[in-house]
Structures are given as C-alpha cells and as structure tokens.
C-alpha cells in the first residue's frame, strides 16, 4: 500500500513531496517546483504548450498567409489535415521511445527536431511548402505522449488522473492561446514597420524560439524517474533496458488500448477539428468579424485551463469511491454528454445561444480527454508508453477522420457536419462499455473472480525467464500501489499467491 506518515522514512527524506514505494508522489501540489516531481510537471506542460502554439500558429494568420502564398480553400483544408495527421504515427513512435529511452530525452529530442519546421515556415513560398511545414510541425504534438508518460511515472495512482489532466489540459491551452498570441505578435511587428507579408514570417520565430527553449529546459532540468534518468539507472542496473518486441507485443495484444484509442479520437480528435473550423463557422454563419471569430475560437481552447484538469480530478475522485468502474462510468457519461452538446451546437441558430452551447460542449469534450487518461495508466505497466502513444495517435486519427468526412468540400454544411459529428461521438463512445479489467471489472460486470489480483494482471506481461532475472519488480510495485482502483473494497483485498503478505495493509 502507499506510504504515509510513519512509513519508511529513509527514502521519504530525499523527496520534497510524500512518495510511495515506487517513489512516485502521492500529492499534486500545483504551485511547487520541487524536483523531481513538480519540476517534471511544469517542464512537460510548458513544452507541450509550446508545441501546440507552434502547430496552430498558422490558422489565426491565414487571412494574410493565404494572400501571400496564393492559397485556395482546398490548399488551406489540406494543410489543416496535414497538421494533425503527422502526429498519428509520431505519437506511437514517441510511446515506444519513452518506453525505451525515457520521456526526458524523447520529448526534448522531438521538440528540438520539429523546431526547424517552425523556423522554415518563415521561408515558405507556395501551397506545397506551406503544407509541408504544417505537416512536419504537427509531429511536435507527439510530446503529448511523453507528457502523459512522464506524469504516470512521477505520480501515484491516487493523483495520476489529476496530474495527467492538468499537464494535458494546460498544454492543449496552447491551441487557444495561439489564436490570441500570433495576431498580437503580428500586429506588433507590422507596426514597427514590416510589411504584412514580412511581418507574419518574422512572427513565426516567436513560437519556434519558445519551443527550442522549452526543449533545453527539459533536457537540463528534468529527469525521467524519481530515482534518476534511464541512462543512469540502466548503468547501475536499477532499471533494466526493456526488450522492444516484448513491449510492442504486450501493447498491441491488449484490446483495451485499442478501444481507448478509438474513443479518444472522439474527444480529443473532435477538439482538434473544432480548433480548425470553429472560427470560420462563426464568421460565416453569424457574420461576426474576424477578430470576434478569433476570440470565440480562442475561448474554446482556453477552456482547457480547467476542463481537462477537471476531468482528471473527477476521475481520481470517482476512483476513490468506486475504483476503476467509477472511472469508466464517468468517462462514458461525460463523453456521451459531449456528443449531445455537439448535436445541439449544429442545431442552434442564434449567436448567443450558440456560444453558450459551444462553451458547455468544450467543457465536456475536454473533460472526457482528462478522464481517458485517468484510465490509460492502468491498461499496461510494461507497455505504458506504447499504449499512451496509441491512444494519443488515435486522437489525431479521429481529427483526420472527422475533418475528412464532415468538414471538407461542400457535401455537408458546417452546422450539419457538427450535428452528424455529435451522433458519431455518441456511437463510438459506446465501446467503453466493452472495457473490462479482470481484477476490477468493467462498466456492467464486476471482477472476473474474487481471487483475481492486480499482480495477476500486471505480471501476465512478463514471462518466467524475465521474472527470474527480476525485470518485473517495477510492475510488482505498481500492482501493489494500484490496489486503490478497487474503490472502497480495499479492506477486503485478497492476499496474492506466492508472495509474502503485504505488510502495509
């Protein structure tokens, strides 16, 4: 069980926050920057925020860029799809990289390697080059996976939903903030004396520099695990360097990862789609001016300040009382309600009501993102990175799918597209009912049997040869700490077979 007062103090003294047996923090103190836990939190959300700002830096400046580069509406639509499609496979690759090399190196490297795409946006001179820079800049959205992986490595089961939700939400905030930041930067540069067609190019240096600096921050100030970096721990033998094919096999054979990937496409994917189309929707349907449309678009993304973290906290709160089943039920309810409000958004015809519905819709859809990553850390311990990456990649697949089906060409008007997207959200979210953990149960069924334990589930990822060499020890500790996912039934926990009784019960 978890360490609390009077527990083993010898390693407690080394950390500023209270920790469990894996040295993961059991508390989430937002305004602390204590290393390694809270420092990792702040470094990861800031760099993810920077990547989001870069990826969505073009949309608010499109009225200028489309004239400079002679873009058509088709070019703009294709570039928007390219921006979110790059990250589909990058997120899966990032998950693998986190499992093998650690989140610090993986995220700092990707952020630095995609910064050139942002710098080169300044020298784009045609629709093709514009599409390419948006495509490669979009790869940086894979830092989402390293953020979630890092939080799952630094924070215990009790607070992992909150940590993942706040880090993810504050990072996603970049998509809203950029709609305000980029026009401001552009105006400033334009007033200093640059022509419009030069000012927007100079403006792109700001997100690029921000992105580079955040990468250096992670590299120099962060560490992978509470006990140190992967390379150091690999050398000292405290952490064994895992086998990629085994990690990959256990990720792809776990059906829960695939279901969560699909359902994440209908909360986060929908959020990305809305980021791309909502300003134009309000501009065209309600005839507001461009500045107003931009502010409305920004407010959708800015709701991430509290809505996604709120989803994560709600997940942890429900887990305290109802365990994993509570997390699953809450996720299904919140995401379905998001679908309902999406249907409504396409139906309302007045500006004020439409903005109100959009804001409510944003809260539910972003909370569903936070709730999803309250469940993901428990799907697998060994292959956490790839599962996180697949789920994250599924989000981007959802964004590509919804834009291609509903918001491209003139088959559907935007309002019809929104309504149909809402229907699709509700249908795909039904898959959550199929998720079942043998040790905790699912939405409709309890645990498989009274004697199935967390150890049984997580140890099934290791074969006996690996267990003999002791590679499974981290998973073992995780199993013990995840017993809180039983909810109020913790007191009646069965003793695991072939192990000494847990002394902390």
């Amino acid at each position, binding site marked *: 069980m978890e360490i609390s007062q009077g527990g083993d103090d010898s390693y407690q003294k080394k*950390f500023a926050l209270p920790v469990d047996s894996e040295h993961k923090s059991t508390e989430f103190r937002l305004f602390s920057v204590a290393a390694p836990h809270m420092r990792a939190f702040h470094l990861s959300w800031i760099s993810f925020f920077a990547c989001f700002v870069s990826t969505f830096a073009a949309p608010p400046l499109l009225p200028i860029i489309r004239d400079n580069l002679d873009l058509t509406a088709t070019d703009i639509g294709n570039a928007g799809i390219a921006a979110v499609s790059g990250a589909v496979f990058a997120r899966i690759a990032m998950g693998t990289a986190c499992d093998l090399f650690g989140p610090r190196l993986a995220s700092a490297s990707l952020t630095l390697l995609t910064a050139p795409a942002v710098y080169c946006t*300044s020298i784009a001179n045609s629709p093709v080059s514009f599409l390419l820079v948006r495509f490669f800049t979009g790869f940086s959205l894979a830092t989402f996976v390293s953020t979630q992986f890092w939080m799952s490595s630094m924070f215990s089961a009790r607070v992992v939903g909150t940590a993942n939700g706040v880090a993810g939400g504050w990072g996603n905030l970049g998509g809203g903030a950029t709609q305000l930041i980029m026009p401001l930067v552009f105006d400033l540069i334009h007033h200093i004396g640059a022509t419009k067609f030069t000012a927007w190019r100079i403006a792109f240096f700001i997100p690029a520099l921000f992105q580079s600096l955040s990468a250096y921050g992670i590299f120099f100030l962060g560490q992978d695990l509470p006990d140190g970096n992967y390379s150091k721990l690999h050398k000292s033998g405290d952490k064994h360097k895992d086998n990629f094919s085994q990690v990959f096999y256990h990720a792809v054979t776990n059906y829960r990862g695939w279901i969560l990937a699909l359902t994440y496409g209908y909360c986060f994917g929908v959020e990305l789609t809305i980021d791309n189309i909502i300003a134009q929707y309000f501009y065209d349907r309600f005839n507001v001016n461009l500045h107003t449309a931009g502010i409305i678009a920004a407010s959708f993304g800015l709701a991430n300040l509290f809505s996604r973290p709120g989803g994560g906290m709600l997940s942890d709160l429900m887990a305290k009382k109802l365990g994993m089943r509570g997390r699953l039920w809450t996720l299904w309810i919140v995401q379905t309600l998001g679908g309902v409000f999406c249907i409504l958004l396409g139906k309302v015809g007045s500006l004020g009501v439409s903005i109100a519905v959009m804001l409510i819709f944003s809260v539910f859809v972003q909370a569903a993102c936070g709730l999803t990553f309250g469940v993901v850390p428990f799907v697998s311990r060994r292959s956490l990175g790839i599962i996180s990456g697949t789920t994250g990649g599924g989000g981007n697949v959802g964004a590509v799918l919804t834009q291609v089906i509903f918001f491209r060409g003139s088959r559907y008007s935007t309002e019809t597209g929104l309504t149909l997207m809402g229907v699709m959200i509700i249908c795909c979210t039904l898959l959550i009912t199929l998720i079942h953990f043998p040790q905790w149960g699912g939405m409709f069924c309890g645990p498989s049997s009274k004697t199935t334990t967390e150890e049984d589930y997580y140890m099934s990822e290791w074969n006996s040869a690996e267990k003999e060499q002791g590679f499974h020890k981290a998973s073992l500790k995780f199993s013990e700490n995840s017993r809180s996912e039983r909810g109020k039934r913790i007191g009646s926990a069965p003793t695991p077979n072939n192990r000494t009784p847990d002394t902390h019960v």
Partner: protein
Amino acid sequence: MIEMDCQPLEIAFFLPHCLEVLEFGKQCTDGFSWVSSCFVLAFVLGGYLLWCYLLFSSGHSYCHCFTSTTPSLKAGEDKITVTWALNTSFPAGIDSAYKTIKVKLCYAPISQQDRAWRKTVDNLKKDKTCQHKIVAKPYSSSNNTFTWTVQRDVPTATYFVRAYAHNSADEEVAYGQTTDSHKSTNLFEVQAISGRHMSLDVASVCFSAFSIVSCSGSSTWKEKGQGIPNKVM
C-alpha cells in the same frame, strides 16, 4: 519606379439604376419609379455594352498590350494610372447626387475560384470582390485621373478596376469598371512581393541547424554519463 507602358484606363459612370445589377433588392436612390427604372436599366445596359464596344474598337484609351497577353505589374514598384469621367451619352444632371468617387482594385473571377473570402455577393455590404482601395476623391465631372503605385500588400492575382460613385449618405449610386459585365476582358495581373528577405532566410537556416546540432550534441553528452543529480530537495 517603372512606368507601365500603357495608355491610361478609362472608366465611365452609369445611371443610378445600374445599382440593381450589383445589389439585389437595393432601392433606387434617385426617386424614379420602378417601372421606368426597369426600362431605363435595359437601355443603360445596352448603352454600356455599346459604349465598351466603341471604346475598345476605336483603338484609343486602352493599352496595346491587352490585345495579346495579360499585363503583369509588380506590387510595390509598378504604377497604374486611372482616368475616369462621366459618360456623356447620359442626360446632364444625372450626377447631381454624386459626392465622392472611390476607386478600387477588384478580383477577377479566376482569382475568386475556391476562395470564399473573395466572393462576389449581390448585397454590397457583404460583397468581397473589391478589397483594395486605390483612391477616394470628391466627385468632379471631368479631368479625373490618379496614379497609384501598387501597394506591397496586394496579393498575386488577376484584377480589374472599378469606381463607385457615392452620394452624401455614402451609399453607392453608380459605378464603372474597366472590364465587361462578365469580368473577362481587359484584366491585368499583379505579382506580389514574396515578403522574404535574405536575412530571414539566413536566420531560419541557422536556427534550424543549431536545433538539430544541439539535439544530437545533447544525446552524445547523455551517453557520456552526464546528467543532473538524482535527488534534489
């Protein structure tokens, strides 16, 4: 400054009723009744087409280069000289309501394709055809001319020039344009500035190279066992 090697463009004005062509349902502003307006409209359109035919076939007041290729102007460098006058075939006094002339650069249909932000809409308040102002001047019935350097924020596209006459309430009451009603003749192109500068190109490349080099440098540094201390309070 490079002068365009063409004769000045000439624009004529129409009677007020021409606004019905531009804007669906907008009221006539000179008080004529509906029925007589329709008849006069038909006459005016016919008269305009005839006038255009005469103008272009007579060989004066249009650029020789229009007959073969579409002329191309460079934004920020080349100039357009616009000359306009009231078409003398219309009755005297028709221009009593005209107070201001606004001359604008307008997108030709080929540059409006797949670009909803340049769409032509009958309701002038929502019309996005003419987005670049050349000049706004008080109205006078003759000797109107203006030389305009194509501004640096004009995008690459195919254009024509249109002039609107506004009354004292700033409503459009008449117009004239350098092309026909299908907007297919007498068009010209503008080549925009790229907005790129050598210094920007160099900066982009240098910063990009530095990012990539520092990334691989960091990985190598990691291999040598450097890193921050494990436990920091």
